[in-house]
């Protein structure tokens, strides 16, 4: 039986060039379907990676209760002091807890395209870099405590002009020089500016922090103890979350939107491609009627014939899917995208390519099953008489 299947498939593939143009329809269809699907999903993957990388589960972030993000949240110095002294926070080498208040302010900037973008400027305290070891300088130097200067994330430079070393950024109390450029290995922080917290607070006349960031103890219950201590304190009206959970919640709606758009467009195209494949495969079976009749007369059973039809369609779909994914990878992988205040790179991952291929194969299967069954059921006598 297996030899029969192999023989029919081989024969069929050998004859494929004769149906080159018809076969091309399926290949092109799959290029379009997979190209669109993978390109759209690269947006999701890129965004997810950039947000998730920023959210280290070993850190906790505390914001005022009822707020969705740091932007609207305010924690007074007194509140922050209580949070910092709570249990569950790791101690530094000097015995002080590895936690401190941070402040974020929206900083409008004009993109090269002329569109305004609101970047976050984040004020870090003395522990800032110990808390965020992923921040690595790639040019210039770190901002100094007390000095009116900023360092910029690498990703911003691609989008906003005048963000090079030595340029100046308009801040609430005048222009601050850029003294350094940093990378975080591609997370969302790379689209932010960093400065000294207290200097930034003076400049913005703010007296409260936006959030407290804390490094948790390695014990698995550290987060629970930290959370319980905060919620049990009647003076505080704050919520604490793992940094990873925080970014997950924040990014959730956007990711949901990107996914919905990608699957909706990819899905509608797939339906179109499926009908196209059905048409082509029915026509192919029609053309092969005499061949199939002969095979059946020679003693081949219906199953190898049906399998040869399906495998033809799968092979064509696989070819198209690979080309489509390659297009998506060449055009979009690593290219920078700005989505409102977020700057991130599009990512075409192996997993995404796998998904695209799977998607195409399912479409091909649906598009070839009915023609395959028809091929298997052809009456030998009628088939042999076909012209």
């Amino acid at each position: 039986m297996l030899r029969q299947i192999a023989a029919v498939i081989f024969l069929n593939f050998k004859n494929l060039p004769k149906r080159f143009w018809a076969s091309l329809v399926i290949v092109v269809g799959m290029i379009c379907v997979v190209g669109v699907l993978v390109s759209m999903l690269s947006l999701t993957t890129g965004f997810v990676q950039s947000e998730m990388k920023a959210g280290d589960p070993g850190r906790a972030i505390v914001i005022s209760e009822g707020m969705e993000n740091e932007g609207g949240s305010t924690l007074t110095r007194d509140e922050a002091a209580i949070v910092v002294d709570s249990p569950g926070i790791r101690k530094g080498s000097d015995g002080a807890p590895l936690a401190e208040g941070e402040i974020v302010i929206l900083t409008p900037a004009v993109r090269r395209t002329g569109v305004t973008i609101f970047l976050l400027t984040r004020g870090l305290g003395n522990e800032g870099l110990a808390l965020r070891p992923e921040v690595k300088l790639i040019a210039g130097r770190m901002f100094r405590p007390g000095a009116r200067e900023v360092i910029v994330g690498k990703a911003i430079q691609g989008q906003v002009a005048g963000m090079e070393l030595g340029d100046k950024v308009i801040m609430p109390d005048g222009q601050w020089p850029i003294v350094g450029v940093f990378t975080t290995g591609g997370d969302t922080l790379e689209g932010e500016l960093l400065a000294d917290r207290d200097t930034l607070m003076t400049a913005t006349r703010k007296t409260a922090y936006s959030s407290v960031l804390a490094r948790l103890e390695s014990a698995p219950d550290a987060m629970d103890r930290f959370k319980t201590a905060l919620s049990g304190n009647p003076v505080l009206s704050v919520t604490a979350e793992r940094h990873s959970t925080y970014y997950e919640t924040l990014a959730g709606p956007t990711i949901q939107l990107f996914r919905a758009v990608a699957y909706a467009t990819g899905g509608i195209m797939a339906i179109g491609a499926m009908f196209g494949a059905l048409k082509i495969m029915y026509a192919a079976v029609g053309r092969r009627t005499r061949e199939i009749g002969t095979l059946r007369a020679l003693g081949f059973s219906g199953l190898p014939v049906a399998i040869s039809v399906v495998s033809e369609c799968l092979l064509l779909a696989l070819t198209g899917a690979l080309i489509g994914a390659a297009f998506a990878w060449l055009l979009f992988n690593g290219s920078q995208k700005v989505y409102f205040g977020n700057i991130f790179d599009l990512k075409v991952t192996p997993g995404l390519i796998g998904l695209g291929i799977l998607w195409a194969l399912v479409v091909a299967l649906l598009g070839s099953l009915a023609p395959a069954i028809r091929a298997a059921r052809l009456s030998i006598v009628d088939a042999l008489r076909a012209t």
Partner: protein
Amino acid sequence: VLAALHLVGKSLLLRYFCGEGDGMKYFPLIWAALWRKPAEFMLTLLSVTAAFTLFGTMIGFDASVAHLVQVSRPDILYVYPRFSSGGVPLAYRDQILRLPGVAKIGIVGSIPGAYYQDRKNRLFIRMIDEGWTEIMPAWFPITPARWHQLQASPSGVFISRVIAERFHLKPGDAFPILTPTVSRQDGSKFWPLTVIGIMEESPQSPGGYVLGNYTYLDESRPLAQRGMLPFFDVLAKDGESGADTAKAVDAMFANSSVPTRTDTDRGEAETDAQAGINVPFVTMVISGAGLFMILFLTCNGIAESVRERIPEFAMLKTLGFSDGLVMALVFVEAAIPCLFGAALGLGLAAAFAQRIPLLLPGIYLPVPIMPLSLLWLAMASAALVALSSTVIPVWRLRRLDVASAISGR
């Protein structure tokens, strides 16, 4: 089903070609060609329909984003603090009002972090003044009578129908509002508001809105916060000078303690349209990919149909059908599934568009709109696809050697 479609299609086409006068006599030829392989015809039609469903949704979405920019107001300005810290001082009002391009200025204050009953029910309560009521009638149904009513009851608020239904409120009901932190001079977090009326919805505020008195807000706030606003609404004298007036406002406060960032409503709409996904590009590429996909399908279909009927075309030419006429016949044969599919696809897209808000609850996405121009664009694209698919077969037919073709060689 196929038989029914056959009948309906036939009568539709008959009517169309009767209107064309002597086009009628060619009708059976085309009909026979289309119905030679009904299953394949239907599958092509369905494939084209899917491609145009995508086309309609995409271009409709693009149109909708463009529409939002179009209906935005170039003469309404928003004055924000350049850096989100504390707000803009009320004292700026008179200075802004003195600028030559400014006609009116309105105040919108808010109770910071306000919520009703549960922290999840956060509300942006607009605490307004008379200037605001003079600028906003185009967007909010605030009449002078309603404004007087509001002034007469300091802690009164108007709520929109959506809010009234959401919280089961009617005029006269208490509407107690809480804040997460102390928000009043008396040290409390509690605002005893009362509903004085229910108003119609505003396109500016899809989730409903609440309007209250600015004076009441300001007099109740802690002293330190008094006289600070989240933003001003400004009406420029005309739309053309709106952007310049915005610049003038920012220039005036560039070196003050609170620098401002002013944008026109139009400018904000444009930024919103461009700040996320590059909508025109993405929609064009996706709909283009769909069309490209069906182009190959129809191209292959018509080429095969012509190849299989070479003797038939040879016969037509022998009978004296001109090249042009033969070309037209092939084109119409290709165009029918394309145009039908395009019309069906747009219909599906329109039905689909209505469901998008239901499919994506909690996510704001402009609903695709289907202006008439979209229909023409789709039809033109469908005709173009049909035309491109007939180029090769038609070229082949022109070079047809009638004698050998008719003898089946």
